[in-house]
């Protein structure tokens, strides 16, 4: 994959995506061991403190350090969107495989099921799940992951159907390979480039969905700092001191843009068939 990595870095947008994603991942890792202040620590003297050496991004009404909150928010965002992406990848791939290889009516049923479920906006599906099961990190992960899973399933169903029609799949069947072997030895590896690119885009959507859920109060529990909740808490200040809203907003934009560009770059760089000669 070194060739793919090189051409990813060589494209300007791919490099930017990689850099932004790396910053988010780095911020998350740093927040695990160090934040300038305890993100939950209330300090009345620092209420609405301006940007300074002591408070890099300023502080909110309760005097909580905004830089520490943004750092800690990265942790939630990355955890929820990564876990949701894993859920989406697993459910999407399993559904797609079921839709691609099962015979007759099962295939049709799974196919129609995916098409119906994809008609529901992910956010609506998430809100329904949260409304039924209550707000928790797990619910948020499952809600976003399942919603995106149907999207993954539809793309992967087409991709797997394409791979299943390949000559080498017929050749493998002619050699005695059964359905399972065809799937894991032949179809999955050949559908993996598409899945990789798809997942980086799903990751970007998951970041937005997590922020939206938190903003609406349907996300992770209120004790956990998230960018979406920061926006919600700070929005009353939009006309008074708009500068405080810049930080969580910027964090969300940078993360989504980073994963999107990374996905685009991977798609352009990661096509081994194009690089082969």
């Amino acid at each position, binding site marked *: 994959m070194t060739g793919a990595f090189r051409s990813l870095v060589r494209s300007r947008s791919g490099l930017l995506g990689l850099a932004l994603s790396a910053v988010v991942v780095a911020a998350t890792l740093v927040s695990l061991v160090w934040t300038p202040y305890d993100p939950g620590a209330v300090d009345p003297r620092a209420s609405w403190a301006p940007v300074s050496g002591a408070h890099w991004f300023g502080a909110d009404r309760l005097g909580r350090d905004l830089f520490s909150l943004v750092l800690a928010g990265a942790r939630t965002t990355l955890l929820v969107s990564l876990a949701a992406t894993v859920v989406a990848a697993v459910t999407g791939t399993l559904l797609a495989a079921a839709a691609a290889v099962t015979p007759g009516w099962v295939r049709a049923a799974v196919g129609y099921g995916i098409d119906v479920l994809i008609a529901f906006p992910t956010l609506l599906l998430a809100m329904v799940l949260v409304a039924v099961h209550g707000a928790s990190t797990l619910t948020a992960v499952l809600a976003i992951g399942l919603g995106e899973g149907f999207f993954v399933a539809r793309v992967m169903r087409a991709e797997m159907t394409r791979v299943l029609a390949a000559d080498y799949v017929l050749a493998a069947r*002619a*050699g*005695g*390979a*059964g359905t399972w072997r065809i799937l894991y030895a032949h179809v999955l590896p050949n559908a993996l480039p598409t899945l990789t690119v798809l997942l980086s885009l799903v990751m970007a959507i998951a970041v937005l969905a997590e922020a939206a859920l938190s903003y609406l109060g349907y996300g992770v529990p209120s004790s956990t700092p998230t960018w979406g909740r920061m926006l919600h808490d700070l929005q009353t200040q939009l006309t008074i001191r708009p500068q405080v809203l810049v930080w969580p907003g910027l964090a969300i934009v940078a993360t989504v843009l980073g994963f999107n560009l990374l996905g685009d770059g991977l798609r352009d760089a990661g096509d081994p068939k194009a690089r*082969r000669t």
Partner: protein
Amino acid sequence: MRLLEVEDLTVRFGDSTVVAGVRLSLGAGERLGLIGESGSGKTLTALAVAGLLPPGAAVTGSVRFEGSELLGRRERAIAPLRGAGIGFVFQEPLTALNPLMRIGAQIGEPLRIHRGLSRRAARGAAAELAARVGLPDPERIVRAYPHQLSGGQRQRVGIAIAIAARPALIVADEPTTALDVTVQAEILRLLTALVEEEGSALLFISHDLAVVAQVSRRLAVMRAGRVVEEGPTLDVLRDPREPYTRQLVAAARATSWNPQETPS
């Protein structure tokens, strides 16, 4: 008991009948050439024998292999036969190989499936098979990917896969069509030599009369889904009874047996 007996084989896709009542018979160790223009149903006949037709194909008639009926068998009951009883060599040596799987793993796959060999044992056996089909530096080539091989080498890999689990019948579907002429001759020699060594029967499918004549002593001519003529290759070539076969023979003479007439 004949090794393979196909009777009244009919394949339909919806309303169109693409194979209409084909009869073929092949004894152990025999070689049969199946010839016909593209679209005559020869490939579908071969795929139908091993139950490899795409979904949507309606198959009727009878296919008996080693005395037992294959048509109507469930996928799970017929899969053990593929590779172990009937081996396939395909037309396009590049697309018939998985681009992301190492050559050794692909040659060893039938052995892992049918003999239950471990990954390592299969790789060892794959290197031996690679040597048998005349691939250079087999230890290195089993670690290569298909795109690193030439067309002729890929088809050697295809043949190695087909003979790996020592099937009693090898079906070769236009195995030389995608190759250039010098490589064609080598692949034909290799295929016939291996079939001889293994004592396998060979069903050789081609549209090229000259190629089929080199490989098999018996010939079946297909046209529009039917076998229109069958017999010993020499008899068919010398005294074709059907007008279509006469056309084929005349065409073959005109193109490949009269070098003086080719423009200089």
